[in-house]
């Protein structure tokens, strides 16, 4: 699944770049004329509702606030902080636990990767706007857009579910703090410009963090759990809809 995610990003970028580098027609001396929007010198604030997609066992719905500055039309920086209002396990985890409850009875920390869910984050990013374009909706109204790539780093707080066993066949999930970890992210999106300094950013972003996790496992038919260390990257892929307002 991780390879697919990378392949998706790679193919998207290649496709956009490949098509864009075809030569301009002889009569198109100005590539896209009458550019209405330029990011140079823009200081903007962004409010971004976010939801995670492609998670294995976790789900996130978050909101973040960002402040960005663009040195020119192509390059900008952004600082951002966010909080996950919904951060927890998906139904799928409960389903597979219920079916195999006898096999995990007594285990406190499940031997599964990507169990950790993010509760808050703070990050800094570099934004590159290689593409500027115009799209028309049914040939009647036009929108100006920037396509952008984003990458950066930051920190985030994580939690994960542990199991408590009131009886041998009955479990209860309890959230445990997994601490703060450094995170990295990359992604891409489209910014659709509206008049009076407003724009809408639609973005796909993968946020990842290295994780070491002391889990427990049982051999087939075993009774006593044994310790097992899991090392993995936690990946959280998010779909983000940012409403931006530019001051300058």
């Amino acid at each position, binding site marked *: 699944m991780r390879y697919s995610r990378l392949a*998706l990003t790679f193919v*998207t970028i290649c496709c956009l770049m490949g098509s864009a580098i075809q030569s301009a027609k002889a009569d198109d001396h100005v590539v896209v004329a009458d550019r209405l929007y330029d990011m140079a010198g823009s200081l903007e604030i962004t409010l971004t509702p976010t939801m995670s997609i492609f998670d294995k066992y976790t789900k996130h719905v978050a909101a973040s606030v960002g402040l960005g500055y663009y040195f020119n039309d192509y390059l900008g920086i952004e600082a951002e902080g966010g909080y996950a209002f919904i951060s927890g396990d998906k139904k799928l985890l409960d389903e597979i636990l219920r079916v195999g409850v006898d096999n995990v009875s007594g285990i406190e920390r499940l031997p599964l990767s990507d169990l950790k869910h993010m509760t808050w984050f703070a990050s800094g990013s570099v934004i590159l706007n290689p593409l500027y374009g115009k799209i*028309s909706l049914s040939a009647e109204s036009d929108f100006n857009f920037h396509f952008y790539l984003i990458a950066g780093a930051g920190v985030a707080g994580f939690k994960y579910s542990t199991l408590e066993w009131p009886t041998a066949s009955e479990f209860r999930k309890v959230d445990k703090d997994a601490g703060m970890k450094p995170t990295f992210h990359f992604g891409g999106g489209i910014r659709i410009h509206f008049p009076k300094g407003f724009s809408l950013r639609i973005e796909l972003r993968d946020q990842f963090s290295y994780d070491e996790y002391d889990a427990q496992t049982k051999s087939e038919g075993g009774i006593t759990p044994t310790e097992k260390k899991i090392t993995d990257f936690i990946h959280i892929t998010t779909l983000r809809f940012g409403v931006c307002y530019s001051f300058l």
Partner: protein
Amino acid sequence: MKTKALSVIVAVLLLASVASAQSPNERIHAIQKRDYSIKNKLELSIFAGPSVGDVFTQQIGAGLAVDYHFDEAFALELSWLTCKAPFYNGSEQTTGQFEGDGIRWGAMYTDAYDEVKNDAQLSPSNADLAMITNYVGMNVQFSPLYGKWALFNSSLGHADFYVTAGGGVAGTEFRNSRKLWQDTGTYFVGNFGLGFRIFMARWFAVRLEVRDYAFAAKVEEAAEAAGSTGAVSTKIRNTLFVTLGLSFLFLGEEPVQIWSPY
């Protein structure tokens, strides 16, 4: 009175005939100099790509699509998506259970499946593991957006963006606990997606598309399979394919070039 009514009708008819004689390309569009037209074109596409986002399964799909574009916005598409050689299931080991990973393109269970099975001694439901083998269906495509863009203000690209929705039938299967492939039935499959068509020439485009195929899987593991409980599991299965396609455009008409400020 009759003369007045007649004059009005004649005037309306005259205006209507003038309006209908006017090429749609002569209207003032929001984006002028539309270099690429798909109206009345027949589009033949080949495409391939992986499924993404599913926790336990991974597939690679490839296929063919034929689109007829009624106008710049609407098209009807016939498509075939294959993740396995059609009409052949591999060598039969037991009744209805087959061996043959080579005829299935990239169909496999993910690391998460191995982790759940081997480390946690747990198991996803069989319905979570059902995979599409071959799909044939029909879609309606709506392309409301057409755009141009510049890369670092130096070169120009043209694309149209579309949404698509439709349905068809698909064969499905899953790999049981004996690691043999087992037919899990033919289902009605609904799909919807979105994508864009990047025009490289008037007869050639590259298509990047994301399409979700959904069906209600009902899977019963064969009773003779080792470790089988014979349980029936049901679930709405979603398989999201990201595909890259090459499209060849035939027929249709050349767009009329007019001056524009864009």
